[in-house]
């Protein structure tokens, strides 16, 4: 529950607190977001990134893949429910198949046999379900530690957290170890992406924001978003 409370507090702060408008219409909370972004960046540079780098240096690739697969398998259950919420029954059936197959033959998800057997992995969460139901993304929002999000996705995260299977496993110490391991594993998977970001971005904050908003829109439309006006040649006007 503490996660829930913390997220609520941040959302409340972000939504009512400092609604001063910056330049970008999709980012009215820019001053708050920038502060949170630089806080996250500092924490990442001081703790998460070095730990993830150490993890990648010390732990053999096979084991890292196993750990990553284990958490990915737990996600598949909630992905399945979200696909059903969105009326995508075939995808949902595929997710369920993955979850059952990998949980048993794949030894609690450590091995991913389902992908090889033709069950494709999907990326779904409650934020995407809300998007599919017609809820707009709302303003861009940077959450503490968790990073880029939007008003809609931040609220949806409350639901995602409640249904998190790691959350269902008994015992506080076990929880904390699992949460920690998942965070490190996820960060380690992003090490290559973050070095590309360092190479690419003139302004890291706006680069992440503009990439994130496109990425979420793409996910809501499952890879086929309708063209937006900005996509057209502006110079031909």
């Amino acid at each position, binding site marked *: 529950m503490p996660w829930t409370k913390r997220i609520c507090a941040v959302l409340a702060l972000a939504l009512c607190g400092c609604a001063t408008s910056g330049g970008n219409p999709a980012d009215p909370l820019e001053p708050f977001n920038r502060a949170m972004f630089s806080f996250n960046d500092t924490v990442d540079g001081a703790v998460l990134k070095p730990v993830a780098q150490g993890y990648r240096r010390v732990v053999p690739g096979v084991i890292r893949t196993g750990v990553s697969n284990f958490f990915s398998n737990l996600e598949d259950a909630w992905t399945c429910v979200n696909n059903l919420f969105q009326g995508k029954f075939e995808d949902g059936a595929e997710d369920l198949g993955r979850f059952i197959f990998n949980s048993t033959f794949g030894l609690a998800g450590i091995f991913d046999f389902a992908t090889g057997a033709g069950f494709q992995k999907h990326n779904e969460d409650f934020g995407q379900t809300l998007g599919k139901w017609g809820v707009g993304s709302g303003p861009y929002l940077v959450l503490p530690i968790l990073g880029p999000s939007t008003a809609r996705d931040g609220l949806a995260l409350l639901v995602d957290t409640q249904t998190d299977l790691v959350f269902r496993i008994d015992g506080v110490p076990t929880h904390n170890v699992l949460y920690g391991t998942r965070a490190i594993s996820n960060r380690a998977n992003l090490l290559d992406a973050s070095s*590309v970001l360092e*190479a690419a971005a003139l302004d890291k904050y706006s680069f992440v924001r503009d990439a994130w908003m496109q990425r979420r829109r*793409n996910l809501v439309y499952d890879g086929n978003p309708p063209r937006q006006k900005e996509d057209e040649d502006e*110079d031909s006007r």
Partner: protein
Amino acid sequence: MKTMKNQIMKNRLLIFSAVLLAGVAQAQDVAPDALVRTITQDVVTVLKQDKDIQAGDPKKVAALIDTKVLPHFNFTRMTRLTMGRNWRSASPDQQKELISEFRTLLVRTYSTALSSYRDQQIDFKPLRAKPEETEVTVRTEVKPSGASQPVSIDYEMEKTPAGWKVYDVKVGGVSLVTTYRETFASEVKERGVDGLIKSLAAKNRQGDSAKSGKT
């Protein structure tokens, strides 16, 4: 006699122009999806074989991109699209500088991304376009190892007299042009076109010092 000679000349001319036309047609006729497939496979073959690149040798990666990839990009259109309305407020000299700095930045970014390539499988999606179309999207998908979702890489391409050229790349639905557009716009708004050129140049130099600092 004379007519015979003329006939031979005519024939030669015909053959010559036919060969010439065939050459031109060949460059134009490579279908966009076939082009993407060939380039990708060429690059992946080199990446898999070259130990220096696997060890992260930036010069070799840059050389690979220079010879294999860059000729198929239209950087002028890419820069123009990213600049949007501000393109016209830039002088021809500024435009030239913008294209060159943006190109350097993209090559650097691309080099970093390629250095982290292991042996992910790449799928090529069938092209959904009519033959007369001059703008198409070529879709590919990279399957990472482990149980993660494949990442789509889409190439926006246009038909030019010199063959098909890429003018935008979308990774997981994130367009390179769109992502840079906001940054470019706010730089121009705050510091003008020259300010943006300076920022790009500084970013490119910073990459140099970071790289030489590491080795």
